[in-house]
């Protein structure tokens, strides 16, 4: 046991780890937002609610069918992703020609509906979700105790984030996607089904949010307002990073999570607001965001 800046190392590294965990969720969610925004030109306000849906899907799978964490990790994102595809086909697709703000208003309405329905049945208090037994316990690293599950969350989200980055930036599918973002009409002329690509992109982005939700379920309680709590922070993350760059979204997400964790150690009163303050500072210095392209 030793001290850094007068703070016990356990506390410091513990908060750093919590920061990394939060950062994983920020990164996964802002990545999904950026991917969706790139293709649909819509800010998906429902993203937080879909993160909540992922957690509830895991919870309900366990309660109703007895399926545990590992099946839920696959099934929940698919189910929620499919629900996203339904939303895109029935509602969002009619808005692409309108002002972007209508997309924000519509997805805000859907978020209200989802949150209201779940709060009606499950109340405001959270439901506990058990850790998977294979990931309980932890490692003593000498300077801190590292719970296995938290290590798993950080590593998994890193893998998923960089996997997404690789697919979009380095593969043929990703090249088509990026081309369709730049000029959908031309890409359609090449015989690529752009509307289907848009639908699947939305489903994928929503699936990412649900995946984050499943991973969050054992750490935080599963509660109806978990989505609206996090989505506003993620919006700030997106403003700071700018949505032009996938890698930027990932880096900003993890970085801000860590900064938030450190603030909890050194200046706990500001831990709720530090990300918003950073956003204000970034807007003053670099209005386009850290990784944004200046328009």
């Amino acid at each position, binding site marked *: 046991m030793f001290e850094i800046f007068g703070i016990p190392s356990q506390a410091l590294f513990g908060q750093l780890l919590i920061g990394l965990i939060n950062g994983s969720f920020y990164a996964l969610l802002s990545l999904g937002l950026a991917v969706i925004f790139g293709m649909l030109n819509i800010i998906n306000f429902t993203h937080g609610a879909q993160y909540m849906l992922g957690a509830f899907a895991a919870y309900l799978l366990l309660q109703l069918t007895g399926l545990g964490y590992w099946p839920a990790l696959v099934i929940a994102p698919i189910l929620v992703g499919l629900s996203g595809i339904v939303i895109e086909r029935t*509602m969002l697709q009619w*808005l692409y020609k309108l002002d972007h703000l209508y997309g924000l208003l519509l997805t805000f309405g859907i978020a209200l*509906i989802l949150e209201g329905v779940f709060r009606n049945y499950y109340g405001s208090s959270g439901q506990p979700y058990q850790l998977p037994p294979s990931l309980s316990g932890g490692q003593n690293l000498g300077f801190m105790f590292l719970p296995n599950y938290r290590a798993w969350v950080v590593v998994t989200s890193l893998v998923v984030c960089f996997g997404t980055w690789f697919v979009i930036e380095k593969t043929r599918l990703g090249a088509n996607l990026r081309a369709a973002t730049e000029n959908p009409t031309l890409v359609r002329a090449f015989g690529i089904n752009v509307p289907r690509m848009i639908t699947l992109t939305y489903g994928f982005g929503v699936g990412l949010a649900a995946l984050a939700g499943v991973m969050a379920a054992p750490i935080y309680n599963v509660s109806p307002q978990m989505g609206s709590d996090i989505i506003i922070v993620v919006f*700030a993350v997106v403003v700071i990073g700018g949505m032009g760059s996938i890698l930027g979204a990932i880096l900003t997400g993890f970085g801000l999570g860590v900064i938030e964790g450190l603030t909890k150690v050194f200046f706990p009163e500001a831990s709720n*607001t530090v990300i*918003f303050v950073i956003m204000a500072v970034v807007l003053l210095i670099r209005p386009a965001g850290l990784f944004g392209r200046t328009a």
Partner: protein
Amino acid sequence: MANVAEPIGAPLVRASAWSETIAFVIMAGFFIVAPVFIYPVFLMKALCFALFALAFNLLIGYVGLLSFGHALFFGWAAYVSAHAAKVWHLPPELAILTGTAAAAVLGLVTGALAIRRQGIYFAMITLALAQMMYFFALQVPFTGGEDGIQGVPRGFLFGLFDLSNTMTMYALVVVIFIASFLFVYRIIHSPFGEVLKAIRENENRAISLGYKTERYKLVAFVLSASLAGLAGAVKALVFQLASLTDVHWTMSGEVVLMTLVGGLGTVFGPVVGAFVIGAMQNYLAGFGQWVTVIQGVIFVICVLLFRRGIVGEIAHLLRIRL
């Protein structure tokens, strides 16, 4: 965004304004007769929200800026005026002015930050800054945390009129509302308002014509924030309460909903929307969480099928300006 087929807000065509005059007379007449058959406290609540929605509509309807953080100005003005009336023992007119001034200052700071980005980023920034000030309200002692500031004295207006009398209070709310309504009407029909609409339609062109659009947007933002603050300050006196509900993001969502239902960019839309949503909340209060769900459904329906809103739809059908 050049290829937008259907922009948000009022059309630019200028027709004769007789329809607006008639609608105004009907509205003012309604406010005079209404307390006879409608519960005055409900009317005052609806009027405060109508003023709030008018302020919000000034930005979305005439500058094309969607602020998702207007609860910040509404709620903080409520806190400041409640504190001024209760702790500093200021008379009501000064308490309201103090709250409004606080909202103007907050509007200047947040506006200067938010107008650095356009479109949906603007909405996200205002939402994030409002959330920051929500957490701040939760932490600083003077707001009373979860309890809010309760038992705010209404006091004597100009030392003469006893506002604890419901009808006197109602009269004050109506006067403030009508004055603000005419003020907003004047703004949107002034040369300044025309520049705002030009910015909404095509900001780059407005810049190339030599307008310092940032400055126009900031002034519009501060005006809107101050009026939202006025609404919050009056609300704090009417209900003798300023609480966290007023600064929460759901309040920002509600004002968006009211304006959307009434009609974005219409003069009377926010007023109609505030009364419709207010009445709905009153009648559905027993349904608990389902009210949120119903509000969400109304959002979805309005955006998909009913983008002109109630007043916009009437104006469109009758081919008049409202």
